[in-house]
């Protein structure tokens, strides 16, 4: 029998500086754990997240991408997350339309006070993506090890 | 101008005159009213409960039949109007009620609130126009001081009836002006006459009616007009105010148009 290595997904999390990144900090200082598979990239606002970045992550081997921002109405820049929400709505719908597993992408609104929600969301998301297995449909084999 | 017409139980029996006056007036105004080929009593009171379906069906059938005829549905009695308009609103906005009512009826095309429901007063205001009406008046009721009695059903709930300001309405006053009389505005014109409990609790119906009529009288009304046969009955029978006569608005309309 072949020795199957346990699958550990690669997850990229784009977090806005003002709410979700602070929420991640709170999860940290509250010692609320989530799998090390999640790696956070700090952006000023969820509206800074370009669909290109998400596709890029999949290309380079991510198995799941999550974007987290301030709750609608609480954006530090007043309206950024509203625009981000529309953009991601379309992008996710298109990925689904192309037959790419819709569970691999997610948007969550997490405030600076929601450390617990941050940890819970990441735990859930890692579990979901782990269950899906490796990203095959948006992979770029050149980028795989 | 062609409409489907839903007369309702009372206008076919005890309040035949009201119906006849309207038909005569409508003809004089060039409004064609075709009575629905088949209709059932609306139940005279709107079943407010969300889980009341069977009691709403007669209204749905009338609405559906007007839709199939491709016409708006006109009512004359305030109670019928209230029941049918509210049920129509349910069919339009409450998917659960619409689904269950349609399942009940089993029509080919489900009814989803497509029909516009109009009280004959709305036809006069919005379709004929009070100015046109005024021009067609042959016997203006000059010198008459008339109080409009709206009661409860004509205006409320205002969001659904969408007929006029529920607290400071003008539609009947404008009608009164159009037929050449002077409207009398009094405080109790949109308060209930207690008609619904006339069987159960005659005493209360009497008290409420008197409050309404006294209020109109205090402001100098010689006549009070209603748009509902039950109000008419109640104010007349239980009100017992001899100085103020109570009439249905179509009677005055027919009189003014010279078709009474």
């Amino acid at each position, binding site marked *: 029998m072949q020795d199957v290595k346990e699958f550990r997904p*690669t997850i*990229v999390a784009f977090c806005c*500086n003002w709410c979700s*990144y*602070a929420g*991640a*900090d709170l*999860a*940290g*200082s509250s*010692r*609320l*754990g*989530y799998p*090390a598979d999640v*790696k*956070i*990239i*700090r*952006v*000023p*606002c969820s*509206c*800074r*997240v*370009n*669909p*290109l*970045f998400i596709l*890029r*992550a999949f290309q*380079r*081997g*991510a198995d799941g991408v999550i974007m987290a921002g301030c709750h609608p109405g609480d954006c*530090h*820049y*007043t*309206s*950024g997350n509203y*625009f*981000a929400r529309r*953009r991601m709505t379309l992008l996710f719908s298109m990925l689904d339309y192309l037959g790419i597993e819709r569970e691999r992408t997610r948007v969550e609104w997490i405030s600076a006070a929601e450390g617990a929600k941050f*940890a819970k969301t990441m735990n859930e998301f890692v579990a979901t993506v782990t269950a899906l297995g490796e990203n095959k449909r948006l992979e770029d084999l050149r*980028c*795989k*090890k | 101008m062609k409409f489907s017409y839903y007369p309702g139980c009372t206008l076919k029996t005890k309040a035949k005159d009201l119906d006849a006056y309207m038909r005569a007036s409508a003809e004089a105004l060039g409004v064609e009213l075709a009575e629905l080929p088949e209709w059932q009593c609306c139940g005279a009171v709107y079943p407010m409960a969300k889980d009341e379906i069977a009691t709403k069906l007669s209204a749905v059938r009338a609405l559906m039949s007007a839709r199939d005829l491709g016409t708006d549905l006109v009512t004359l009695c305030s109670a019928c109007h209230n029941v049918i308009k509210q049920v129509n609103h349910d069919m339009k906005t409450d998917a659960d009620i619409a689904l269950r009512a349609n399942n009940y009826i089993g029509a080919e095309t489900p009814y989803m609130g497509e029909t516009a429901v109009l009280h004959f007063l709305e036809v006069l205001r919005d379709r004929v126009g009070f100015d046109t009406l005024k021009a067609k008046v042959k016997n203006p009721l000059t010198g008459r001081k008339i109080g409009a009695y709206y009661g409860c059903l004509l205006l409320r709930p205002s*969001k659904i009836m969408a007929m006029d*300001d529920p*607290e*400071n309405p003008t539609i009947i006053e404008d009608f009164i002006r159009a037929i050449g009389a002077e409207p009398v*505005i*009094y*405080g*109790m014109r949109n*308060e209930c006459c207690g008609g619904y409990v006339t069987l159960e609790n005659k005493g209360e119906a009497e008290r409420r009616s008197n409050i309404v009529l006294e*209020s109109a009288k*205090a*402001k100098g009304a010689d006549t009070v007009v209603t748009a509902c046969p039950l109000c008419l009955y109640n104010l007349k029978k239980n009100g017992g105010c001899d100085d103020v006569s109570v009439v249905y608005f179509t009677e005055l309309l027919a009189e003014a148009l010279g078709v009474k």
Partner: protein
Amino acid sequence: MQRIGVFVCHCGTNIAATVDVKAVVEALSHEPGVVFATDYQYMCSESGQTLMREAIREHKLGGVVVCSCSPRMHEATFRKAAAKEGLNPYMVEIANIREQVSWIHKDIKEGTEKAIILGRAAIAKVHLNQPLQAGESPVTKRALVIGGGIAGIQTALDIAEAGFEVDIVEKEPTIGGKMAQIDKTFPTLDCAACILTPKMVDVAQHEKIKIFSYSEIESVKGFVGNFRVAIRRKARYVDEDKCTGCGICTEKCPQKKVPNEFNMGFDTRRAVYIPFAQAVPKVATIDANYCTMLKTGKCGVCAKFCGVGAIDYKQQDQIVEREYGAIVAATGFNPLKPTQYDELGYATCADVVTSLELERLMNAAGPTAGTLLRPSDKKHPHTIVFVQCVGSRCDAENEKGKPYCSKICCMYTAKHAMLIRDKYPDTEVYVFYIDVRTPGKNFDEFYRRAVEQYGVHYIKGQVGKVVEENGTLKVQASDLLSGEQLHIDADLVVLATAVEPDKSARGIATMLTASMDTNDFFTEAHAKLRPVESPTAGIFLSGVCQGPKDIPETVSQASAAAAKVIGLLAKDKLTCNPCVAQSDELLCNGCSSCERVCPYGAITYSDKEFRGPNRTTLIRRVASVNPAVCQGCGACTVACPSGAMDLKGFSNRQIMAEVDAICKM
């Protein structure tokens, strides 16, 4: 390639306990460009910073990566330290290996691996970092206050006292606002005019304050420190400089039947008028809707009598352009007109009035000279019913009313009730309330006095119907505590109507790009920590335009807004956040996609010349970002299809480099 130094912090044992810091140093030291890597107990400590500065100097570092706690914690610390060594602070990046690694991952192997990956991402980013210079913009040392009520007056006075110029733009012919109409103020019962009018005079006489009365904001351009505002001075057909306010015209004008809005329409004024005796500026205004001369060209009485020739029937609206460093919105409120609540009889009964109308009926300078007479028959009312919360505290779906508590009604009603009982002890006063809300210094004591000393009947319940019969108002109401339905024969009914933001506020907010809530109150930058600032830089909030408040609160907020304005105007230059968007003009299509999503109006377009093929010159529409206005959210960068718009410090390339570093296994 950047020469990069990596510094891994132990944070005592906070990091070192679950991350093998030596292994991280070892792994990162082999990353491209890394010329120095070390670890230290506490990087943020003085000696840790010294360590970093020495390394920058010794190894000629062009970029620094600190693997430590959250950048929200110490990014500024490390950037400052680097700057002291002459390294551009924006060449420093933080890898967060505490909050995101050591504190949440128990397994040392896992933690160390992730710390290395985060370190790599930071290194990859630093390779693409550019030195950034925080820009500066000058500050116009003048403030604009929109609205001349007590809020605007107080803000203007405080700013002017600090030595800065202030303009007040007021749409009415006089400043003073609602407070000028009020009789007495709670909880001290001072006469409103006695405390307001001296302030109005101060404003008029202050050399730093300029009043644009009977004027409106036409347009606002620019940004914090550099606003350009067009003000429409509406034609008042009177030369403000010539008019002495003698009032002869207002006595001679033959048009006497103009409803007097200052007295809530209870009496009349002339077509040429001065709203009230203490008006500032004390200048007459001709009401074009009523002036016979302006309407028919025949009359001219006022001009005939004016001794100084101030009347000018040919006057036109004038647009004045002024520059400001800061703008304060003090647009105030109006009481809701309760015509929709005719169960309470307002539209049909003359003796049902609003509280502000009652103020005029009780004011010594009002239509009844201070004697409380009811409007219908000018008789003393002996039974008065007050109704609270008319149009306030309604369900969000209720189209007639407002969802908020108007905050001031409980107190002014207690004031009215008390004053009436004091002056006319034979009057019975009933107040129908839902809750009596009196949070404020000496407020509850005041209300208790109304009940205990003055015998005002407070009844928990509401009025359901008011009907006028033979001169009496028949009031039907509930008394919830006794479980009764009450029938009171009243002479006067007073409705405490909801406060609603002035209708002009919405348009002004749009011009200011200041956000508003669904009720048309201005939104503050932070509900708790920045309550007098709008999220838009340079726009400040004063008074009820931000939310219902009473006079003491309004005045404190007005002064707070002034303090913020003074803080801004005191600066000669504003330092801007350098992490702002910039447009690559060669790539820009000029399509306006970015402009549409910019919450700050930081993007403008201009036609620029470019070199075309064959030595031709092309003119293209291109976007440029004003770095003083841009706050760096990045919304524009994604809206831009051509990639012309990018964000400094968080560029497309930088973020993608981080993505690549994280995903590469």
